[in-house]
């Protein structure tokens, strides 16, 4: 498109990405020629049901899984394909992943402080304490609970820790894989607001992956709909939610529509 010639190159660029898993019953195409661009300071929300390839996507973009074909670039640099390259290129300083299952990704035997310190040790940075305090203040995690272990925290606080741990290396891109799934509505609201504030304050870019249409609509500027490994439709959030074209996206959005107009005086 002509108009795009002059815009700066995207922060995250995914081109013709495919992934085939080898299984005993032959190849399984998890992703099939996906192309996505996310500009700095924007949120791209990828909607997909389970089995559509969301987690594969998150893994490839965060560099822990190698694609079968295609390329992922962050700020023009190709994403590494193996844990070793990942360490060498210090990719994790640019891109961090926030998972849904915080209980599963935080070490249950370490205190929150220790968990937050880990990435700083890897980084070889000094001044741990002030950096940790700054980041937990940013996510409104109480300092008094730094000595707790993950199991002693509520789901909402654990999610704050997960976000803090991602932010502590000062990345420019966060991959949010179902960041509020399994949280209660009132807790979810706090995390969603937090994510919005952080994005503004720290000039972050989000690549959001979720099955929750409300959450995607709330956070995203651009939306893509993933179906059986393909992005069947993408566009601005306004366009997708007002006039989706693809039959699958229309079905998905229609199924999600509300029977009653909920009272939400804002």
């Amino acid at each position, binding site marked *: 498109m002509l108009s795009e010639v002059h815009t700066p190159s995207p922060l995250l660029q995914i081109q013709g990405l495919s992934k085939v898993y080898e299984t005993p019953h032959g190849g399984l195409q998890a992703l099939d020629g996906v192309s996505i661009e996310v500009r700095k300071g924007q949120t791209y929300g990828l909607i997909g*049901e*389970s089995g559509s390839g969301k987690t594969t996507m998150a893994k490839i973009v965060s560099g822990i899984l190698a694609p079968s074909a295609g390329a992922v670039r962050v700020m023009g640099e190709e994403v590494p394909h193996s844990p070793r390259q990942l360490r060498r290129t210090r990719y994790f300083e640019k891109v961090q992943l926030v998972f849904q299952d915080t209980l599963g990704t935080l070490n249950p035997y370490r205190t929150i402080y220790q968990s937050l310190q880990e990435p700083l040790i890897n980084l070889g940075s000094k001044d741990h304490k002030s950096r940790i305090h700054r980041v937990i203040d940013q996510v409104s995690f109480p300092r008094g609970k730094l000595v707790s272990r993950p199991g002693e925290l*509520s789901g909402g606080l654990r999610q704050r820790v997960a976000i803090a741990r991602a932010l502590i290396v000062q990345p420019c891109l966060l991959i949010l894989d179902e960041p509020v799934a399994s949280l*209660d*509505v*009132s*807790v*979810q*609201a*706090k995390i*969603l*607001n937090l994510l*919005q504030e952080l994005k503004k304050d720290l000039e972050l870019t989000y690549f959001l992956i979720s*099955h929750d*249409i*409300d*959450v995607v*609509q*709330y956070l995203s500027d651009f939306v893509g709909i993933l179906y059986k490994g393909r992005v069947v439709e993408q566009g601005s*959030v306004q366009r997708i*939610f007002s006039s989706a074209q693809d039959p699958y996206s229309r*079905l*998905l959005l229609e*199924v*999600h529509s*509300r*029977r*009653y*107009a*909920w*009272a*939400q*005086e*804002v």
Partner: protein
Amino acid sequence: MARPDPALWCSNVHVRFPDGSHPVRGVSLRVYPGQVFALIGESGAGKTLLCRALYGLQRFIPGMEVMGTIGGAAEKAMIFQDPGQFLNPGLSIEGHFKEFLKLSPRPSLTMEQLLRYVGLPENREFSRKKPRLLSGGQQQRVMIALSLALEPKVLFADEAVTALDGLTRKTVIELLRQLCQDFGLGIIFVTHDLHVADSLADWVGVMYAGRIVELQSAENLFTQPLHPYTKGLFRSHPGPEHRNSPLIELPGRMPPPDHEDGGCPFFDRCPERMAVCKQHLPEMKELSRGVSVSCHRVFQDRGY
């Protein structure tokens, strides 16, 4: 017009545990044949325990003590979230049906009919499978079919579609509505998901800290919520209206299941609280037919 007898009713039901927790505190409700009663509320509100108490599962749950009056049809069945956990991993689908058809007082349906009804394949290849080989949606359908084998008048569903994705979820919800129509089944449906309640329920009870604080028809509840907690839930739920404004958060947290009864349990978090709320627990009042709420502010505004 006289209403039919409720398929399930209860009055002033309490659930207690020996450790001092008191997760259900005086709940009364009615579920009518052919209708879905949704219990909504955030986790820890006591929805699951209320549901299990109404079913009579306390015999199988160590320490669980139930008080109050529970009545209605004796023919009950239940389905759960995560049906993979609730099916016997070592037993085939067919094995499950054999057992459940044996339990039915007068089995009039066959496994094939039940499988067909819930939209599953009727062939042996399918019925010989172990539960883990089925998708989540299929497992939930198997569970629904198994409960139907018991020919219930009331179906208890605890987060029965929570683990399912949008499209599958929709088809299971439609199946449940179909059951209501075809069998005149009363369904009590526990969910923390407002969307599910919106698309399925005829009546909704909102649970908070062990009590139902508001009970209305689904249409009224979603369009004109009365209780400040219900309103808070809607305001903090993301939706099309929130595109460019932050969600309005509910401060604080729900009191734990062993909290002391005093004033209104929502007092600390309530934007509409008044002096009286701190001292006096608001009782549940029926404001008009089918509209009950427990909130001093609502009582004041409406002149009660």
